């Protein structure tokens, strides 16, 4: 599920013909303050190239206009609402409040409430092996119509958990907001390749040798698995695992705590495995 960006307006800081330019520090302050609130801002001068095509329905043009008079602006196509406001003599904070007021109670995505944490695939490295899809228990990955691995439900990803990057044999999974390379997108070197190929011990993450059991897909194996997994044992194993991961500093404790029940893990892992196998056979790759 992808939730769409709420984009109530785009701010244009206008310093072209008919407006007086702001001082350089004031300009930088205003831009930084608006960006840090989550607004997209265009700085428009008579110089350089602006005019990205855009589909914003609402533009708020700010400027130090002549005679402190904001002009009346109208979009010839009638599709975009354009409002202009004079900001002569206003401090940065006043300008931010003016913009907030113009937005009113229209919702907007804002920094501070959510961290954009999700995997990004480097398709120049990805071999479409589907290991990430088999691994993730939260349905983050899926397969595109043309049989390619895809990040489909990025909102399901657990904040600060880069575990799937470790199962990718090609170091093709990046988390842009991760601190360390190559997961943060740094160029991948030989040493990274060697190190990253030492995969996460999936069995310890899931609290048992689940993958061996998945490979042995007989009903007998499955029922043995269920019987062995008393709630206490699972909890004990998770604690052990948590300590190890916490020591490594790799996976946040909350992620382990939020893992589904052992039976649910088994079911989800099987589902993901089946989807990966279906995609691989559709692509003609042996599973």
């Amino acid at each position: 599920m992808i939730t769409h960006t709420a984009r109530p307006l785009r701010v244009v800081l206008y310093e072209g013909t008919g407006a007086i330019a702001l001082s350089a520090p004031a300009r930088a302050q205003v831009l930084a303050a608006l960006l840090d609130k989550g607004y997209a801002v265009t700085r428009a001068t008579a110089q350089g190239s602006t005019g990205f095509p855009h589909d914003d329905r609402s533009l708020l043009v700010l400027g130090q206009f002549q005679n402190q008079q904001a002009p009346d602006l109208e979009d010839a196509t009638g599709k975009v609402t354009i409002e202009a406001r004079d900001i002569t003599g206003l401090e940065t904070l006043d300008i931010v409040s003016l913009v907030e007021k113009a937005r009113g109670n229209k919702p907007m995505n804002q920094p501070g409430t959510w961290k954009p944490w999700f995997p990004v695939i480097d398709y120049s490295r990805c071999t479409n092996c589907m290991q990430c899809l088999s691994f993730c228990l939260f349905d983050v990955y899926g397969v595109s119509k043309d049989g390619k691995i895809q990040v489909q439900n990025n909102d399901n990803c657990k904040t600060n958990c880069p575990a799937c990057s470790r199962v990718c044999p090609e170091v093709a999974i990046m988390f842009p907001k991760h601190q360390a390379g190559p997961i943060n997108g740094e160029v991948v070197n030989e040493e990274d390749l060697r190190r990253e190929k030492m995969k996460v011990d999936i069995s310890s993450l899931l609290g048992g040798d689940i993958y061996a059991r998945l490979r042995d897909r007989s009903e007998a194996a499955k029922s043995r698995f269920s019987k062995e997994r008393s709630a206490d044992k699972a909890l004990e194993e998770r604690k052990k695992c948590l300590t190890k991961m916490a020591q490594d500093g790799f996976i946040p404790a909350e992620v382990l705590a939020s893992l589904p029940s052992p039976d649910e893990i088994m079911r989800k892992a099987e589902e993901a495995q089946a989807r990966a196998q279906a995609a691989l056979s559709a692509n003609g790759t042996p599973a």
Partner: protein
Amino acid sequence: MSDSSPSPKLLYCRCAYAQVVPQSVKDGVLAKLCDSGTSFESVADLCEMAAHRDERLKAFANTTPIRIAACFPRVVRGLFRQAESPLPEDGVEILNMRVQSIDEVSEGMLKA
């Protein structure tokens, strides 16, 4: 670039949602862009836009030549592709505020 080439559009990413770009570098680059007198676009966070498949990414990807001040080029290209608006191979320069200095990024953005 020949004289007849259009001047590149400039896009600055503030990395406001998780701030993995050092504050001093992103402030420094923004200040240099602001000092320069040139027009440019700025967004709060390309990651957030990609997460929500923001249509503006398509507009940016379709507008080359373009220079983008953000972070690792692998990430920036991956984000655009994930949002179904891949950046073309040619005509795109990505400056990396996570590892390059203020001067390197701003010179790369503003060079003639």
